[in-house]
């Protein structure tokens, strides 16, 4: 479950993120080799993004520089430095899905949601992201809503799924 930002902000008025949560994650991974990636994943899972303000805290704990941590965060497409919409809708842009109409699907979804790839809907509900292969190439075109895959996707199926799962994002 993703925690909502409103609650984490309340915990520490000085910093715009939940320092305690980050500290707990850092402690969990302490002294484990190559721990930066799992730490960033855990922070993003807990806070919904990796707050730039948390970078010094992470760097200190790992005996690294802020630059190094920033370099890593900015390298990987998954890591976000700002909160996203409540749900992430990833639409596959790779060849197999192209062969099955993903270009049209993407355009239709952009029109339906009113936002482009890499953007969030006006109501903050859905962030639309490109993804390059979900491994669902035998049921192209494919999308993923949160962790839920959807094969042979259509705009209707996607919007129905978004509506049905409106409450929480698994």
């Amino acid at each position, binding site marked *: 479950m993703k925690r909502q930002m409103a609650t984490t902000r309340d915990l520490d008025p000085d910093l715009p993120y939940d320092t305690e949560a980050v500290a707990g994650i850092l402690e969990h991974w302490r002294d484990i080799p190559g721990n930066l990636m799992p730490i960033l994943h855990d922070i993003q899972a807990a806070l919904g993004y990796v707050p*730039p303000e948390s970078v010094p805290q992470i760097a200190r704990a790992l005996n690294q*520089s*802020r*630059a*190094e941590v*920033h*370099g890593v965060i*900015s*390298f990987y497409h998954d890591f976000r430095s700002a909160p996203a919409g409540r749900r992430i809708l990833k639409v596959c842009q790779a060849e197999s899905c192209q062969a099955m109409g993903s270009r049209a699907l993407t355009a239709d979804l952009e029109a339906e949601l009113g936002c482009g790839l890499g953007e969030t809907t006006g109501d903050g509900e859905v962030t639309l992201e490109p993804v390059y292969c979900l491994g669902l190439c035998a049921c192209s075109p494919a999308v993923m809503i949160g962790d839920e895959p959807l094969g042979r996707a259509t705009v209707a199926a996607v919007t129905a799924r978004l509506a049905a799962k409106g409450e929480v994002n698994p």
Partner: protein
Amino acid sequence: MWNEIRGLREGVDYGTPPRQGQPVTLTVDGVEVTVPEGSSVMLAAVEAGRAVPKLCATDMLESFGSCRVCLVEVEGRRGFPASCTLMVAPGMEVRTQSERLTQLRKGVMELYLSDFPEAEIADGWSEFHRTLDDIGIKTHGYGTGRVHFDLPVDDSNPYFLFDPAKCIVCSRCVRACEEVQGTFALTIQGRGFDSKVAASQDDPFMQSECVSCGACIQACPSHALVEKSLFSGGYERA
């Protein structure tokens, strides 16, 4: 390793740090040369008086292999390995010059030029400019396209400035900050074409972890990181 550096000749950049090891003999363009095991072909080529053009390599830093202008041919091997990351081997026969190599090197330099301010190509004296001269190229055939000229100049530091328009993303500054200075204040932000040298979290240098030691400026081959004192009338982009 520094003990060996002392033996190096004044003003010569061997491209990769010297190594200690058993002597290995090879030929570079037919010139026989003996260097310690673990040395790069690039270093051997300098010793043989057959220096290979290079941009991302300097003997202050471990080899990196990113610029791809130091390509050579090796007898009995397919392809065009980078001489900075290729280790010497006994009996190796290296060619540093051929039409094919020139073609590839020009091709690589063309790519650099396609993202380098045109007005600053002619009268520069940086390592990058010298390499352009060495390879013999001044223009590119890519026409207009995406460039990094819009990125702002960072002149926050009182002593030096960073102009991303002239950055060739060789990472020498990043590596110098890590390997030479040990501060790790620089990184490459983003990836691919968007790769950009950034201090700390893309902060102005003055607000970053930078300790202003100058190692990055020393390392920069293209005057993208450069002393302000070299500009008598302030810095203005062409």
